[in-house]
């Protein structure tokens, strides 16, 4: 069979297999759905730990509040970018969207560290507490990443690794923001480093696995073999 005829017969048989499809909801709506789950977790943590301690820390060290806001902005923007990158034809520039939030988050956390060096005496986290932070961020990032990957199951990310990096960043930033609710310490260098390591681990793990997890259903999933 010659190639143009193959294309023609392919079009006809695809037409024969056509069934109505449910359109993918817009990226902002799916982002909102994911944020709703994050908000539910935040509500649970607030219910358990109360907001008083968190607000007192914010009043004493406003840069913690700014860093927390930066983490929230990063999570929202990275999740939105991940969903946008899941739609063919949306520009790759979407990947820059979380950058301002990320700069605010890292910048404010870094300033907090500097202040603690200049004015020692604040209660800072020891190695043991830092490990707790690491476990919290990674532990919460796993279900949050899993949820994002599940929400992207019907999407078609043509740049799966970039989308996976956004997923990692969104879930790590959300976990770090949620940690603020039950975090008992000032931001110190060791703690900041722990957070950075946790975020880097989550992003790297997603980039390594997410790229593969996001791809199969629109490329090779229906290769049933011969």
């Amino acid at each position, binding site marked *: *069979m010659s*190639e*143009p005829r*193959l*294309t*023609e*017969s*392919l*079009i*006809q*048989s*695809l*037409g*024969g*297999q*056509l*069934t*109505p*499809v*449910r*359109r*993918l909801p*817009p990226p902002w709506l799916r982002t909102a759905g994911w944020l709703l789950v994050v908000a539910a977790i935040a509500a649970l943590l607030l219910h358990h730990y109360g907001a008083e301690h968190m607000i007192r820390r914010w009043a004493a060290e406003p840069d913690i509040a700014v860093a927390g806001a930066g983490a929230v902005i990063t999570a929202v923007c990275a999740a939105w970018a991940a969903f946008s990158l*899941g*739609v*063919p*034809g949306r520009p790759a520039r979407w990947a820059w969207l979380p950058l301002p939030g990320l700069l605010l988050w890292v910048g404010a956390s870094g300033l907090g560290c500097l202040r603690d060096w200049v004015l020692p005496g604040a209660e800072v986290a020891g190695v043991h507490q830092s490990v707790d932070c690491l476990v919290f961020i990674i532990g919460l990032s796993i279900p949050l990443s899993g949820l994002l990957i599940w929400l992207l199951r*019907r*999407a*078609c990310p*043509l740049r799966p690794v970039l989308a996976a990096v956004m997923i990692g960043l969104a879930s790590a930033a959300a976990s770090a923001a949620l940690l603020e609710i039950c975090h008992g310490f000032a931001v110190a260098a060791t703690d900041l480093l722990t957070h950075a390591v946790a975020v880097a681990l989550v992003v790297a793990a997603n980039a390594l696995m997410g790229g593969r997890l996001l791809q199969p259903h*629109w*490329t*090779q999933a*229906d*290769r*049933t*073999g*011969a």
Partner: protein
Amino acid sequence: MTDADAHASDSPERRRAAWMAAAQAGDRAAYERVLADSVSQIRAAARRQGVPHDLLDDVVQETLLTVHRVRHTYDPTRSYDAWLGAIASRRAVDALRSQGRRGRRELHDEHAYDSHPDADDATAATEREQEARRLRDAIEALPPGQREAVEQLGLKERSLAEASALTGRQTGALKVNLHRAMKALRARFHGDS
């Protein structure tokens, strides 16, 4: 008048967008029209990526299959051409990569050949060529249905679903044909040697 016809006076891109929107709702005529209309665009996108002429039809078919699988991701309020162009470019890059891999493998074989000179080189190469020709001839000699199954599933490494979509045959029939073809080829080669 269908939903798709209502936009016939619009620009070609808006028409394609309207056809695809109608296709998402299950309008077969609109779907076949938008796919047929997309072929030249896919070829242009593939050429822009540097796909050689002999690979263009492969990219067109792979892109059409992908479009079919992910047609629910198209948002009718946005550009159809940008959506299709992104998928076609991706498929073009995939085709170039897999061609590159094949090329590298062949290069490595040649390299191995050069660095391990053998007195029987010429004989071995001739024998290999003869074997390849015999296999090609044997495949050519198969009944059309069996030949098609070997070409689609074996040589082009398509999935059953894709081969079925391409040839319009049932997956069961393709499997049976492949099985029969392999049996025939095996009998022919084992019988010969």
